[in-house]
């Protein structure tokens, strides 16, 4: 019986799916890359950033990580490019870029 989410896909046999379609691991959604949805991309300007972290709680996709009290690069695997962070930033340190730019 295959139990790991990463081994389960649309070709998995019925015998191998988890019982009752339960999952026995945390946070398997990380395996799904919602970054592909993005039409505009937030770009972090480290020079303008004052590390106030205000953008962090406003991200609907938990894509702005904090390590040792410091903001990290965007998680582009999952960022959907909603643009909330750019608007929230008091210092103009996040700009939204379209593919053409």
């Amino acid at each position, binding site marked *: 019986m295959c139990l790991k989410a990463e081994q389960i896909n649309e070709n*998995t046999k019925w015998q191998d*799916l988890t*019982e009752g*379609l339960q999952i026995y691991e945390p946070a398997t959604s990380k395996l799904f890359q919602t970054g592909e949805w993005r039409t505009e991309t937030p770009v972090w300007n480290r020079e303008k950033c004052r590390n106030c972290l205000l953008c962090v709680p406003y991200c609907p996709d938990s894509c702005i990580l904090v390590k040792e009290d410091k903001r990290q690069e965007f998680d582009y695997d999952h960022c959907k490019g909603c643009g909330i962070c750019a608007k929230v930033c008091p210092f103009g340190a996040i700009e939204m870029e379209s593919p053409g730019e």
Partner: protein
Amino acid sequence: MPIKTRMSGNEAVAHAIKQINPDVMPAFPITPSTEIPQFVASMIANGEIDTEFIPVESEHSAMSAAMGASAAGARAVTATSSCGMALMWEVLYVAASSRLPIVMALVNRGLTGPLNINAEHSDSMGARDSGWIQIYAENNQEVYDNFLQAHRIAEHKDVRLPVMICQDGFITSHAVQNITLWEDQAIRDFVGEYQPEHYLLREDEAMAVGPYALSPYCMEAKKAQAEAMKRAKQVILDVADGFEKITGRHYGLFEEYRLEDAEYAVVAMGSVCGTVKDAVDAMREQGRKVGLLKLRVFRPFPGREIGAALRHCKAIAIMDRSESYSSQGGPLGAEVTAALYRAKASAETVNIMYGLSGRDVRVEEIRGIFEELEKLAAGEVSYPEYPYLGLRDGTEDLLNR
């Protein structure tokens, strides 16, 4: 050690719950099952069991809370009837597809309408496709015995499906009859501790229950659930064997009562089977070859076994206590007839609607049915439709045409 006493069907369930000492029981009162949560609440109030009773505000919440408790790793039971189970309907399916081994005492009562509180199988028959195992009882003894076996069946790794233990409202639930109980320790040893593999509160594992599943997964998940239901048949028999070793009482998927050489048979479930047995005994004394197939397990449906058991009969009356409004008869009629067809049986059949909303059934009426079966086999009568037993239709006919 057997303990001989007297109890009603509801008391028998409550006593079984006391011996099992389940973890959680959410329930909402509805006639005729109300006594069961009352008895359990009293036991809790007097410190006789550790069960937590959840006095929910509806049956929908009763089944939802049972689902939550079961997924969390607790042994969960509930009790209901009729419209109460109808209100649970949605969650019955969710509980089964989530593979949660909840046990429910169902005291069968007709669904409204008209509003009525008496015995009928329309509640459980309506839920026959919900994915629950359904086990029916003829009397209080069987209710007790079935309930004691339910957790073992539901929790078995080959099954992991919820089970409803059915008894007829009032006729069984409220009538006090002799019963043989067994001592607590023997029962607890038989039922055993619940040790689920995965559960929400497992401290070293995060678990997710109840996903949205896209189409590529649903059909496969349903197949897995259907296979578990098929496997339940053997598990039910194995658990019954274990139960027989302790108590000496034998249970199968159905009971064959003087059926071996019977030419005319009645197929029925629930309390009416006692009445049928009386009729069979009386007619056997006259040398008539009549018998009964008393179905105990309706889900999973033992179609192959039923076909084999009835194959030799000349005429069969299939008794339904639930109108399906299909214009073809009741659910038992449909499924038993299909089983006979697959068994290449040549018996004539008639599907009889009886006992709706608690309508009484008398031994003489069952004898009358056997007599009709003899005529049916001889080609003297025919029943192109499904007759009602004891219906006022302005004729003297036992079965209306």
